[in-house]
Structure formats: structure tokens, C-alpha cells
């Protein structure tokens, strides 16, 4: 997905690092091998970037400058694609399994901003610090998501559940992941990871109170990705 943009911008000093949030390493590895990436392609089984950077969904991006300073915190990060999937058309197809139809209908209402995002990225790669999209440190911290007790606890419960899942105590994981969903309902990587392990379609299972369709309906599909904030830093 990122290969073309990476090849375009790498000669100008940008590296792209893709990070798969996947408890199941093998699933991610198979996808990556098909694309033969020439940029770092990492696997984050414990969703550690949620804790370290404030990631809440996929795809989420963070910009880091040459000195190791974050200049844009977590936000939706879509590349431009030659052909985006037509979710509505897929939802209308008679061949679609019934349990997927509603998911696809909702997906067709999700709002993404690939044009705005990639044009901001190109601007930064060319202009560096002078780019209006490169934010000063205080603004980066201010625009990073909230981290109160609830979000910090969610990160801890997710990690504990993931550790148990990975060390042969899978039956102990869901009760911690249920806590995660209660504590940080707007973190979709935590929720979708747990749902996907209970049901490949992320539908309703007996393990969790919620599922993708139910939770997306609750907030409205158009709010699934918070809109990019491309305005300059607010005045003091």
C-alpha cells in the first residue's frame, strides 16, 4: 500500500516504516511477503505503539523528523490508491455472505482523506521544519490523544491479555480485553484485535458485549476516523 509513495519520497529523505498490529504474526507475515517491501515492515504483537504513541486505529500515522522529534502525532494516514474498493457495490452483490453485508454498507460511509494527507506529507518532506504541517513540540503533545487513568489502564489490560494469550493461557485473555473495551471504547485496534480472535468477521460473539457493526453504528461510520487537523498551531 505504501510502496509507491515510499519510492517517490525516499530519494528526498523520507523512510516509511509500516507496523502490523497483529497478535497473530503469521497472518501479517503472509501479507507482507506478497508485497516484498523495501522499507522496514515490523510486527507489533502487543500493540505497543498504542501505548507509546497513542495509536487508536489502522491506518494511523506519526511523523518523526531527522532529530527524532515527533512533528505530527497520531492521525488517520491513508495513501492514495489507484482503485479504492467500492464497498457499496460489494454490499449489494448477491455473493456476499449475509454477516458481511452490514459491515460493507457501513464501510461505504467511512470518510478518509488520502489526498489531503499525502499532499501534507509531500510538503513536509520538501520543506522540513518550514512546512506548515510540521508542528512544534507543545502542539504535538497537545494534539496527541487523551491519556487519563482510563486510557493508561486500557493499555495495561490489553498487554496483560496479550501476554496470557501468547503464553498458553488464552482462556484468561478475554476478561482483560473486556476491561480494555470498557475503559477505552475509541481504541479500535484493541477492540478489533479481540473481536477478530473470537470471530473472523468481527461479528457478535459470546465473549464480548460489542462488535464492529454495533460499535460503528453507535458513533456513526462517518466519525470512524477523526478528521485530519491540518490547521497551523493555535495561538497561545
Amino acid at each position, binding site marked *: 500500500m505504501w510502496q509507491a509513495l515510499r519510492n517517490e519520497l525516499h530519494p528526498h*529523505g*523520507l*523512510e*516509511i*516504516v*509500516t*507496523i*502490523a498490529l497483529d497478535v*497473530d504474526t503469521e497472518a*501479517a*507475515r503472509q*501479507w507482507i511477503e506478497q508485497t516484498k517491501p523495501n522499507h*522496514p515492515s*515490523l*510486527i*507489533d504483537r502487543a500493540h*505497543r*505503539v498504542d*501505548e*507509546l*504513541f*497513542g*495509536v487508536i*486505529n*489502522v*491506518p494511523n*500515522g*506519526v*511523523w*518523526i*523528523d*531527522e532529530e*527524532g522529534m*515527533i*512533528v505530527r*502525532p*497520531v492521525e488517520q494516514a491513508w495513501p492514495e490508491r489507484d482503485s479504492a474498493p467500492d464497498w457499496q457495490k460489494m454490499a449489494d452483490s448477491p455473493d456476499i455472505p449475509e454477516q458481511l453485508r452490514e459491515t460493507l454498507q457501513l464501510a461505504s460511509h467511512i470518510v478518509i482523506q488520502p489526498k489531503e494527507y499525502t499532499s501534507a*506529507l509531500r510538503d513536509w518532506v520538501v520543506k*522540513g521544519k518550514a512546512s506548515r504541517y510540521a508542528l512544534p513540540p*507543545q502542539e*504535538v*503533545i*497537545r494534539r496527541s*490523544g*487523551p*491519556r*487519563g487513568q482510563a*486510557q*493508561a*489502564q486500557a*493499555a*495495561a*489490560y490489553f*498487554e*496483560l491479555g496479550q501476554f*496470557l494469550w501468547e503464553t498458553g*493461557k488464552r482462556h*484468561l485473555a478475554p476478561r482483560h480485553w473486556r476491561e480494555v473495551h470498557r475503559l477505552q471504547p475509541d481504541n479500535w*485496534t484493541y477492540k478489533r*484485535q479481540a473481536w477478530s480472535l473470537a470471530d473472523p468477521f468481527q461479528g457478535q460473539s459470546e465473549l464480548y458485549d460489542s462488535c464492529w457493526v454495533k460499535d460503528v453504528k453507535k458513533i456513526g461510520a462517518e466519525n470512524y476516523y477523526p478528521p485530519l487537523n491540518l490547521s497551523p498551531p493555535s495561538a497561545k
Partner: protein
Amino acid sequence: MILKTLDIDPKDFESRTGWAIKPEGACKGEVCVPLPAGAISGARLDAHMLSERLGMPLIHDADAKVWCLGPEAMGRALTTAHAPELVLPDYQGKQFHLSSLRGQKVLIVTWSSW
């Protein structure tokens, strides 16, 4: 971070959370939080003390006998704009350090197979 005991090695604590133990206290980027004198001189850190001072939730699974110390709850997801060190395996299993890209601009971007 996952804990089997409530005594934490400061080196492990730093590499996992980004908080370094210095004479002035626990520091991440430009932020330093004072710690009790004993905590700094001792070889091990007490998880309860770190939990209290840094606002890190400490949770426990009694059946599995493990604890987990969560990230600092200081209001925002980022306590500092200094990028944390991130060490993760690449898809061939080789450890990759995000800091190895210093000197270049970097976009990190998440995706998943689910």
C-alpha cells in the same frame, strides 16, 4: 510492562517505558519526576512506588500470577515530543530499532491483517 515480580530492573524499565532513572528522578524527554531517595540509589525499583509517582496503573492477574505496569497517565498520550525508542521484529524476525533511522524523516504507519 509485564512483571513476574514487583522489583523492577531500572534498565528494563527504561527500555520498555522510555523513563530513565537519573539523579533528578525518573525522566522522559524534558520531563523529570522526583523519586524517593531510596528508589534512585537502590538497584531495583519498586513497582508500587513507580505506579504512584508516575500515575502508571498496576494491574494483576491472580490466576496467572503476573502483573502489568501500564503507561504514565499524565493527561496526553505523549508526555514529550521526543520519539520513544521502539524495538520491534521485522517480518523476517530481525529486531529493528526505530532510532536507527535518525538523520532521515520517518513516517510510521499502522495496519493489520484483521
